[in-house]
């Protein structure tokens, strides 16, 4: 299986481990990830405003590259995933945005959301299958109690992301079970961590992130996993005792990779 791969800015810098382990785990699972050539930063957050076109263009370019390569584009970072999927939905379903973006880019053949955007987790679930991953696990994480933290970017808006049930998701829990660990379901796993308020109001972030970690701890979790570098940062900085990891780190470990 070959997929286009969009790492995004953070995976090239602060979250190198998220990137490296994703690539190695994919390779072990027989998946080839071809990095999108000359990719640009997605902008970090989806521009919600109806009249913002320029800020959506870098995502459109990535999507067009995936269309050109004729394969789904896979992301690991929740934020990149959120931006790409939502911009793709605009290109498909919002004729005003789609028309203006295509004019900006001077596309001879207009891009109309033809590319398929997949999160790495979706790729594992829908293209590989969690049962096949379970077969590939050589070092099952038996006895570990792991809590999944979804945050907001993977799930919402539910209709566009179509990632999982936005209020009661199961994909990361199923992933955890496939690796042989026990999944801890706890409250606030789909509530916001405080995100970019980290820059100006750490107390606010701490309040939100602590609620998440306390929930996981009360549920008996020994670690929390996430797909988002900013979630990871916020959860780690709020000083909980529970380690917060990228989901790819667990996959890497369970597949017996060094």
């Amino acid at each position, binding site marked *: 299986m070959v997929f286009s791969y969009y790492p*995004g*800015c*953070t995976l090239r*810098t*602060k*979250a190198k481990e998220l990137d490296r382990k994703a690539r190695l785990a994919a390779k072990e699972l027989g998946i080839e990830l071809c990095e999108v050539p000359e990719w640009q*930063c997605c*902008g*970090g*957050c989806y*521009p*919600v*405003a*109806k*009249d913002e076109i320029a*800020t959506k263009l870098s995502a459109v370019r990535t999507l067009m590259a995936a269309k050109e390569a004729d394969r789904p584009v896979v992301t690991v*970072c929740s*934020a990149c995933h959120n931006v790409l999927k939502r911009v793709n939905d605009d290109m498909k379903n919002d004729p005003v945005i789609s028309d203006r973006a295509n004019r900006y880019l001077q596309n001879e053949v207009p891009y109309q959301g033809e590319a398929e955007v997949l999160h790495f987790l979706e790729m594992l679930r829908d293209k590989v299958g969690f049962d096949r991953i379970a077969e590939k696990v050589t070092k099952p994480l038996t006895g570990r109690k792991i809590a999944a933290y979804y945050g*907001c970017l993977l*799930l*919402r*808006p*539910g209709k566009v992301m179509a990632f999982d049930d*936005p*209020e009661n998701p199961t994909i990361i829990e199923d992933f955890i079970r496939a690796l042989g660990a026990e999944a801890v379901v706890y409250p606030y796993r789909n*509530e*916001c961590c*405080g*995100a*970019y*308020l*980290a*820059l*100006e*109001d750490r107390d*606010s972030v701490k309040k*939100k992130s602590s609620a998440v970690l306390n929930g996981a701890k009360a549920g008996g979790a020994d670690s929390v996993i996430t797909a*988002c*570098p*900013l979630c*990871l*940062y916020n959860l*780690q*900085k709020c000083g909980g005792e529970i380690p917060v990891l990228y989901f790819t780190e667990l996959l890497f470990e369970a597949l017996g990779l060094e």
Partner: protein
Amino acid sequence: MEQKNLKETVLRISGVNPRKCMKCGKCSGTCPSYDEMEFHPHQFVYMVENGEIEPLMASKSIYRCLTCFACVERCPRQVEPAKLIEAVRLTVIRQQGQNHLKPDAIPALLDEDMPQQALVTAMRKYAK
């Protein structure tokens, strides 16, 4: 800008129809930043509909919404309050000299673990 133009601007940027609101307050019942806001999500909907944009623009509440979309996801009438808050914020920072976050101020806010994602997002949200 005049009040009427401001309202039209906010409605155009957001694409939201505040008249769909049935005033149930579910958005404010679910907002994770509620306690940090002077005006709450349901008030944004109500005040935009009434054309009271300037008090919203002057309020720090517009920098407290994290666009987590909990209110959008759970609104029974699909009013999408977060999009309105974003539109009010843009109406402010699109004006010259009204950036909430200035590049010069950033280095002091960083630590070595801060992911690029936070900076990029904050610049998108707070500055033009």
